[in-house]
């Protein structure tokens, strides 16, 4: 009946408890977990905590304040309000179900990989693979690694109904490196267009070698919704999300709108 709280000094021990305890969930920032606890969600029986102080919060004034990470600030600022960002963690955002997970969308476009601590010790995994399998098996993400994108190749936008904060109708992150004015190795990720953030691989392929103008991006826009399977929720219908996705992708690729 009553919920249990288990506190561990090390992340490794916390990860172990996640596998062994029934109905265990890890307390990162608590911005999603406490919501379930407050409504006495039966799926949460044990809260697993770690006092390891290495949480990376989404507040740009704390852990993300590093100048090298400034390009990610628009994506971090898009999450919740200030109080949510002070609590929320990068790791937690990787587990956030749609329509949440805007920061994870940004990391996916950066081709990030994650280090997991779990029953089988530490292992590294591409973020894309992790997202595809994250519902099965209890694990903790301890680090996220990515290569800093060149110059201003990184773009992000989030579409919400409420400003400045609001849940995603959808979000788009893109890494658009240019070689001689043409796209070379585009990475595009969508948030809230699927169960987890996903890569828009058809659009990426259609953008390769193209210029970032109206004519150049037309083939990518034509396949913008390939592979998407958005849901109807209180924020928007699946139909609406698919309708507006190409519009916002166009604006992002043409540099007309960004977070």
């Amino acid at each position, binding site marked *: *009946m*009553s*919920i249990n709280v288990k506190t561990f000094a090390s992340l490794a021990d916390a990860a172990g408890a996640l596998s062994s305890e029934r109905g265990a969930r890890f307390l990162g920032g608590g911005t999603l977990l406490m919501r379930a606890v407050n*409504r*006495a969600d*039966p799926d949460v029986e044990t809260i697993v905590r770690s006092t390891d102080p290495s949480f990376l919060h989404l507040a740009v004034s704390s852990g993300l304040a590093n100048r090298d990470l400034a390009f990610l600030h628009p994506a971090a600022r898009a999450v919740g309000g200030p109080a949510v960002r002070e609590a929320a963690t990068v790791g937690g955002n990787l587990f956030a179900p749609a329509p949440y997970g805007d920061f994870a969308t940004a990391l996916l476009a950066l081709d990030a990989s994650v280090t997991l601590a779990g029953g089988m010790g530490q292992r590294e995994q591409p973020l894309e693979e992790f997202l595809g399998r994250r519902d099965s098996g209890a694990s903790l993400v301890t680090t996220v690694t990515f290569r800093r994108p060149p110059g201003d190749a990184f773009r992000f936008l989030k579409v919400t109904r409420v400003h400045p904060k609001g849940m995603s109708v959808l979000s788009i992150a893109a890494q658009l490196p240019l070689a001689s004015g043409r796209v070379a190795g585009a990475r595009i990720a969508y948030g809230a267009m699927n169960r987890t953030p996903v890569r828009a691989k058809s659009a990426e392929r259609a953008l390769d070698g193209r210029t970032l103008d109206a004519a150049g991006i037309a083939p990518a826009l034509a396949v913008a919704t390939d592979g998407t399977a958005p849901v109807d929720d209180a924020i928007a219908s699946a139909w609406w999300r698919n309708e507006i996705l190409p519009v916002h992708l166009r604006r992002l690729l043409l540099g007309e709108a960004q977070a």
Partner: protein
Amino acid sequence: MLELRKEIFADERDDNLSEIGQPTQRQDMLGHVTGTSAFYDDHRFAGLLHLKVLRSPHAHARIRSIDDSAAARAPGVKRIIRAVDVPVNLNTLLSLIQFGKDDEPSLASDVVRYKGEPVLGMVATSERAALEALRLVRVAYDPLPAVFDVEEAIKPGAPSVNATYAKNTFEYYGKYDHQNLRFGDVEAGFAQADVVLEDRYQMSPIEHAPTETNGSIAVPDTNGRFIVHTSTQALFFSLDTAAKINAIPSNQLHFIGGTVGGGFGGKVDTMTEPLAVLAARLTGAPVRYRLSRHEEMQFGSPRGGERIYIKDGVMRDGRIVARHVRCYFDSGAYTRLSSYAAVKCAAHIPGPYTIPNVGAEVYCVFTNRTPATAMRGFGVTALDFALECQMDKLAHAIGMDPVEFRILNAYRDGDMKAHRREAKNCALVECAQVAAEKANWPIRDEFRRMSSRSGGGAARTGGADRTRAPAPQAAPAPAAQPQRVTYERPAAPQPASAPAPTPPPRSTQPAPPPPRPSAPATTPGSSHGARRFSSVFGTRRR
């Protein structure tokens, strides 16, 4: 900041005002900024218990069986409240003023009629314990056909939503399924009109979403009384309703309201107090019944969705000569305040415009949706949205400026309104003129010179052929005597057989005030013993 246009109607007013126009600080502002304003939950009680309810997952279903035996044994559970425990398990809010029949249970006993309808109450030592115990309750439902559309609901053969109103419409005066307005001859008006425009408008239900959710705490006091702290906007409604449902005299209840954390109409339905009081009576302990945010948004009563059909006939010179409105209020599964919303809507038609031929039917319809209630001018605001959209379309259809169009058709003092009352103290013309000025919206001089105080009365609505009214008046001279009618309250109650009010004679003299509807004598057996009178509802049904 605040601009007062005191030159308008200056001769009618004493502007020696000490409060109006002065910014006066709220008496509760210091409490708000110090966090000391006491909302209902800002009281602590030793041994406080928590009430949560089990809600129907179906829009329409028969309850076959309820097995709460496992829940009764759950940790922390103090009492289960079942439908049979509720002393008076059928009510309607406005029964307090004898308007409408009891139709809504506090806990559904045989049929659930909307998704979220309460079926069972669980009182426990914590909200968590109550919620976990509720999960152990097994209810067997047999789903029934449901209806969610107002026009589908009134078709023959539609599922019957509400056992009290089997045909899915509220009953007015014991026999009418709608509010009806007739003035002149709309069909003749349409036939004569240069342009006829009809359209349909649909509103969504809107949730008030107050920052503070609905809730109350019932506390046993001494002498068998109960103190109730409540979020209600309607303290005496809540007290009397809780007394009725609990079958206790109202003097056993001491209701304390005051600071409401946002109401907007969403805290008038007495949603939590009756069961909180019952729980306190059954346990002997203080009990809080608080809606979660999810319950507030999903199951708290919204503004009802309204479907409005408007058909207008307009002349090329700008006069609207006929208007017909058909409106359906989606009351959801139970009446609550929608019966009254329909009355207000009918009273508001055709809007603040003088139209010689008006017809309207306004229905209060039951569907298997969340029961609707009051919100921010309910019954009027949605209708105004529809009417004003229609006004813009009409102006566009005849190529007339939309502001001038409204000024032309706005009622003037002395005009006869569709409800057979004379328009008085009109000010729409002046409001439109000032709004145009503020918006830098140019309107022609003749419209800037128009006045609510001239051009009204027989000049506009006189003659047998109401479609043939004179052209807009140019540069009217201000009247030597303003056409004001004083409305005096009669000194003594009128006899019950007073003649029906007749329309005032068509002249430019100030008309005598129409006689007020008569006040019914106290009827024996009336639950409150007080005289009931309302110019809205007319003759009392009792």
